[in-house]
């Protein structure tokens, strides 16, 4: 398997806590495809800084409330 990015996220938890928002709805809000949201939630893809900020703004939280560093 490809090396996972050293960035963790709580996108799925926040999305479900946000009135059970669908992956499609979140994708539309931040301007990516549903598959990209799935990849972010599964830790297979680290979004760009812009998309990360957009995600945090959708949930009304700070960037570090959504993403964490799991590297060295």
């Amino acid at each position, binding site marked *: 398997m*490809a090396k*996972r990015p050293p960035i963790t996220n709580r996108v799925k938890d926040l999305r479900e806590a946000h009135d059970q928002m669908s992956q499609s709805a979140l994708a539309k809000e931040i301007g990516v495809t549903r598959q*990209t949201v799935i990849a972010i939630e599964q830790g*297979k893809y680290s979004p760009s800084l812009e998309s990360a900020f957009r995600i945090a703004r959708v949930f009304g939280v700070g960037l570090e409330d959504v993403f964490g560093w799991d590297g060295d």
Partner: protein
Amino acid sequence: MSFQEKSAWVMCIALIVSGAFYAWTVVAIAQVAQAIPPPNGLGLVIGTIIIVAIAIFGHAVAALGNPADANAPEDERDRLVVWRAGNLSGLLLGVVCMLSLFAFAVLGSGNLLFHMIVAGMVISQLAEYALTIWYYRRGV
């Protein structure tokens, strides 16, 4: 599965079928002639038609399954996958071209040069689509 991944699968199949057909024609002629055959124009034309036909049919089926996905523009992840897969396949094509030129310099066979370049183009494109699928499946 995203439309881009389905597209990569379709093109993989198209290239494998077309490449196998062209390789079969070249090998068949080589076995009869007992020498490296000259460029097979008819084989290339038929191989191209095979690729185009499979690509059109495959993409139409993939798009009909999810028209919204097929019409959606590429996002940042799609662009990254395409860039990485294309970068590596380009390197592979460069290596094959260099090997082909070296073989020509040593052996002096223009026919061999032609077939090695064609094979290199097919292999590098196959690598690009395979890498595209890998990155979509395993992460990028």
